[in-house]
């Protein structure tokens, strides 16, 4: 399995170079911004600008929902106008969205499904409501146009190289179609030979069904739909049968944990992990042990934690401002120093320990207490 190198940074640089003021204007701008801060202290000028237009901020990226379009009975696409600070994205990447639900801000990651360079500058995500899911249900069923959400810059390395390989295979399941749809919408013209093997419980549950079937019908991709309610879950033995030239294809896969684990095992067995790229929406939790008392040292908060809940969730529930990102162990946006005690990596069961004076960096989103511990947040 390899992680494709992508160029989100170069894209960002290109934009910031364009925005960079001429050298002569810099001292003036610098002076003005200092004056603005001195006039607004203890606030900053953008705190006042936010009152007028929350999307104008160059510091805090936000977006406004302009359209909510149902896709299936439990999935919807949200078209969002990002604020001025948005730096663009590469198809396949995801964006983090912060939504205030019952007064509480909750951040989740969603893959971008939109066409690049829309005239209105909007982006889109497609969300599937999962049972009891707080954010997904809110976005699918309660969000309405006008809603302002917090955004983060797009990130992620589940993307195609600038020149897609000659023979492509996408394997997706359920909402896992979303990053792939982002790629197909933007790069299908650059793809010669592409197969999409998509699983969903029934024909009605297929997100983007119309668009995908039209692409299939026009011969621009070979679409294999698998309706798991009748056909059963995709198994390793089905693969070669469904896609006879599978060995020649470079694969991008996104879907439920079981499916991705199966693919990982199959490609590892054939020694071809270099041609399998996967995107997971949630961490594969395998190891749960005893919990303990967690102290968030800078915030001066101490709470009891079980051994299965990530420290990120424990801290958030206690009102601690926890830094976070993907919430599943890939982006390192949640890393904080462990000062004392022990934590367990929920994916591997590995226990990391620190003694007073240490600052062992741990990912709070996939680490749970393994006894009493102190973390610097």
């Amino acid at each position: 399995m390899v992680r494709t190198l992508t160029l989100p940074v170069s894209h960002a640089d290109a934009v910031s170079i364009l925005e960079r003021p001429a050298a002569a204007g810099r001292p003036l701008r610098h002076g003005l911004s200092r004056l603005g801060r001195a006039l607004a202290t203890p606030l900053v000028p953008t705190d006042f600008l936010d009152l007028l237009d929350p999307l104008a901020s160059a510091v805090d990226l936000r977006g406004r929902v302009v359209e909510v379009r149902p896709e299936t009975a439990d999935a919807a696409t949200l078209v969002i106008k990002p604020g001025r600070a948005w730096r663009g994205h590469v198809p396949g990447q995801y964006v983090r969205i912060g939504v205030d639900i019952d007064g509480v801000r909750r951040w989740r990651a969603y893959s971008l499904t939109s066409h690049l360079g829309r005239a209105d500058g909007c982006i889109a995500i497609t969300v599937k409501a999962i049972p009891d899911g707080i954010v997904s249900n809110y976005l699918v069923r309660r969000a309405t146009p006008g809603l302002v959400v917090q955004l983060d810059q797009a990130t992620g390395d589940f993307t195609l190289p600038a020149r897609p390989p000659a023979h492509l295979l996408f394997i997706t399941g359920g909402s896992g179609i979303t990053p792939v749809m982002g790629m197909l919408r933007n790069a299908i013209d650059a793809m010669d030979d592409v197969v999409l093997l998509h699983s969903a419980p029934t024909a009605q549950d297929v997100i983007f069904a119309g668009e995908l079937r039209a692409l299939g019908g026009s011969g621009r991709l070979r679409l294999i739909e698998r309706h798991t309610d009748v056909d059963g879950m995709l198994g390793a033995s089905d693969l070669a049968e469904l896609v006879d030239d599978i060995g020649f294809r470079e694969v991008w896969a996104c879907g439920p944990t079981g499916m991705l684990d199966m693919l990982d095992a199959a490609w590892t067995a054939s020694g071809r992990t270099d041609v399998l790229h996967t995107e997971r929406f949630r961490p594969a939790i395998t190891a749960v042990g005893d919990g303990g008392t967690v102290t968030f040292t800078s915030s001066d908060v101490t709470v009891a934690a079980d051994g299965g809940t990530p420290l990120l969730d424990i801290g958030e529930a206690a009102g601690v401002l926890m830094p976070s990102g993907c919430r599943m162990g890939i982006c390192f946006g949640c890393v904080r120093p462990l000062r004392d005690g022990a934590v367990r990596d929920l994916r591997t069961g590995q226990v990391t320990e620190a003694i007073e004076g240490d600052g062992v960096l741990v990912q709070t989103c996939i680490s749970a207490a393994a006894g009493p511990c102190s973390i610097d947040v």
Partner: protein
Amino acid sequence: MTAIQRLPLDPTAHLRAEDIEAIGRELDAIRDAVLATRGEADAAYIRKVIDAQRKVELASRAVLLVSLFPPAWLAGTIGLSISKILENMEIGHNVMHGQWDWMRDPKIHSTTWEWDNASPSSMWKHSHNQIHHAYTNVLGKDNDLGYGIMRVDEDQRWSPFYLGQPLWNFLNACLFEYGIAAYDLEIGKYLKGRKDKAEFRQQVRDVMAKIKKQATRDYVLHPLLSGPSALSTLGANATANLVRNWWTHSVIMCGHFPTGIATFTKTSIEGETRGEWYLRQMLGAGNISGGKLLHLMTGNLSFQIEHHLYPDLPSNRYAEVAPKVREVFERYGLPYVTGSLPRQVGSAWKKVLRLSLPNDFARKAVGAVVKPLASTATRAEPERAAA
């Protein structure tokens, strides 16, 4: 007021240990009921207040650009005073208490908030949340009691220094934000050599840096921006700061000084149970009665009792828990101190004046004049504000 256990009538004497723990459970249940319903409406409330305060500030400062024109001066000064009061009380004080941390909004969070006050938020949070709220009205522990420069309790030994305390109190009211900064610095503790020197020096630097920023804004930049109105804008800003200082000082005096509020000795809080802690908070604070506007402008510290019981509940919910708390007070026969703003401010000032003199000064003086009647004089009942 005097240390509660030494009052001739200890208001808690009739309570058994089980009663005190039952009070604790009842007060916990009131708290849990708020937590269970805390949500979107509360978040909308604080966002609305912050939004309104910033707009009022912006508009007032804009109007003051032409403050040479007297109606503009008046409107701008009133607006800026209101905005500063809201910013310090309903917003700053309560956000720094962590009342809104549950929203997980980094812009409205106790760890990130900085307020328009001379005391940097980190210092204030330490002395206010960790000392004052933990040791509410404990003699020798809670610096809010007299701020270390005043005698506010009969149990504090009198010295001639206290003769000046009506003046100290007046000056403290005028310069309240600097007074807060000075006592957050724990100057007394430093002078007695009980505070780390390096830490103290760093804190002094922080306070001075903050004061410089605030003063530059109010007394240099905004006046300069007003061009010909510079002097009158400076006057307006100084007036707004004075009004804010007076107002916050008065509200805070009402919280713990008026007659009927109890103080506690150091030893009485050792090994305190949850119920006993609640009991101390209940008896160590007093409310101000009034309407919605008063509650807003006092940062809901008009519900000082409820605030001390539940310092981290959103301030907009105190009004709703107050009748329930009062009902518990009444059922257990405890005094619930409350009164109108003028009455509570008056009561607090009266005490400041009275205690500037030795405890028995009035009696002795009266005794000297009307000696023949002394034998028939009866001991005055301790005053108590109406519940």
